[in-house]
């Protein structure tokens, strides 16, 4: 103690002022450094949009907005339209959500209410780990394992079964290739499933136990507690999580490219091959010669970015509002 007191006395007032000033200068430098890094992140975002717009410019000039609803895609005559890709993207993602959201919520209910205690953690962790598996794995499985099995054992049977039923006949029509819109949507749904269940389970766990206990105390059944108490309370979080998953599904490349069939026409049944924006870009970009081919792919990329931006931005706003309500 005495040493410190002594040293303290030995530092003169001007020296101390100098040290403080030096610390202040270092402070400013460090703050500016972090600020610069934050601005670079901002710059990346602006750069992505700018590069897409610049890359797409020739195509935007040539085709304008009607690009969106033109269904021609002909590299030879340089006539391009986004409709088949945009349609494929929206339909596969929509079907994937149709399967993955109820099943994902089901898994979350199972994990929080039904699953026996000792199994809860292992299954929960397994699902979280699966959410990290790269999409190319799902794609390769879909191509090598699911599609051949589906083609041989399920598809033919379904096509035959509905051949005389008026509407279903056209929904399930066409030669059984194994790959196509339906297979792509199913693989997508399996891919986003762990993500949705993990998010939903996390949100369910934020529901105050008191609310549930009160409902049980009134004599509610487990299902009534889930449906009338837990789900309404967790709604914003579940919807936000589902939107994030939708954002992923819309932009997903590899899980889809393997199994969609890459056909540039509007699919006329669930089983017919189609394409999505990301699959088109992934398949054709390196071979895109000519003045309008690559720019048209950039244009597609821009449309994809725009769609996912809207979805992701609304998901974020929803989740932000939830956080604010939770008071964290």
């Amino acid at each position, binding site marked *: 103690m005495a040493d410190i007191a002594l040293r303290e006395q030995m530092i003169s007032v001007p020296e101390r002022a100098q040290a403080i000033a030096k*610390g202040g200068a*270092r*402070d400013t430098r*460090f*703050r500016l450094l*972090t600020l610069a890094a*934050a601005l670079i*992140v*901002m710059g*990346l*975002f602006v*750069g*992505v949009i700018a*590069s897409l717009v*610049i*890359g797409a410019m020739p195509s935007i000039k040539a085709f304008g907005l009607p690009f969106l609803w033109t269904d021609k895609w002909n590299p030879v005559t340089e006539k391009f339209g986004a409709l088949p890709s945009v349609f494929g993207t929206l339909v596969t993602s929509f079907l994937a959500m149709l399967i993955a959201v109820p*099943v*994902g*919520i089901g*898994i979350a*209910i*199972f*994990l929080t209410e*039904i*699953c026996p205690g000792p199994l809860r953690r292992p299954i929960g962790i*397994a699902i*979280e780990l699966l959410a*990290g*598996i*790269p*999409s*190319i*794995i799902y794609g*390769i499985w879909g*191509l*090598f*394992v699911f599609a051949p099995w589906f083609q041989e054992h399920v598809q033919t049977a379904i096509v035959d079964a509905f051949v005389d039923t008026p509407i279903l006949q056209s929904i399930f029509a066409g030669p059984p290739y194994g790959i196509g819109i339906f297979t792509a949507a199913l693989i997508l749904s*399996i891919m986003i499933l*762990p993500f949705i269940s993990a998010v939903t389970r996390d949100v369910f766990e934020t529901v105050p136990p008191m609310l549930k206990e009160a409902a049980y105390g009134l004599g509610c*059944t*487990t299902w*009534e507690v*889930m*449906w009338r108490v837990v789900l309404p309370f967790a709604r914003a979080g579940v919807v936000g999580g589902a939107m994030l998953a939708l954002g*992923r599904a*819309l*932009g997903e*490349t*590899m899980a889809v490219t*393997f199994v969609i069939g890459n056909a540039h026409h509007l699919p006329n049944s669930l089983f017919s091959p189609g394409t999505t924006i990301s699959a088109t*870009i*992934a398949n054709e970009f390196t071979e895109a010669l000519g003045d309008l081919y690559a720019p048209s*792919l*950039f244009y597609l*990329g821009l449309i*994809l*970015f725009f769609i996912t931006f809207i979805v*992701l*931005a609304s998901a*974020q706003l929803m989740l932000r509002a939830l956080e604010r309500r939770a008071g964290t």
Partner: protein
Amino acid sequence: MAAVATKNQGLIFRRKITNRFFLLLAVGAAGFGLVWLALILYSLFYNGFSAINPKVFSEITPPPGEDGGLINAIVGSVLMSTVAVLGGTPLGILAGTYLAEYGRYGRLAFFVRFVNDILLSAPSIVTGLFIYEILVAPLHGFSGWAGAMSLMVIVIPVVVRTTENMLLLVPNGLREAAAALGAPRSNVIRTVTWRAARAGIVTGVLLAVARISGETAPLLFTALNSSFMSTDMTQPMASLPAVIFQFAMSPYEDWHHLAWAGALLITATVLTLSIIARLLEPRKH
């Protein structure tokens, strides 16, 4: 009285049946989901392990019909991921620090946070287009550097996000104590909050590595692919995901085996990294 009792009993019976039905449905959903995931892992391990042999790690990718391995793809993936992580991590940590320590509730921080979260889940193929436009097209050539840059664009938002979250977990009392001792703000951050959040930040970096080790789409038109052994980052470079894509889409049986082997390698890497990250992660409560 009797009428009311039977009516009640009927109601209770109906509610019980509904309860049973929907809970069964939930169990069914869990079964359905878990079965798919189990099937995928099963065929991955089955096909992957039967395709893995020492040659995978010692020989380069073969032309169709010949024996070979994946070593050039493994080397390319490791090189590009290393560069991406080395470049993206400091930048991500600094930006995350800005959000958690300086920006906090400011307008700029709000925008950066928003933009970062968009980048975090934006389609990765768009990243590839971005790097193609700013690096590949002006320089007239695909290169390992371009591949690494596109991966870096994916690493940064992951690191920013986790760094911010982890720094926000550090109690303010620690910062105030250090400031009360007279430490300048930058010292407080570097010697106190960073240190307290270190495990969490490392977790974020590991998750970022896991994320990019399977990324395919951004590499397709930045690093392209290569069937030769190369460590020259100015040339096109092979990577595991790109090779898997090429080999799986081909009609050749032995290429398919190598694709499975590569898929298993990637999955094993990702699972190992995420398990380590989980073990390191600080408890939330």
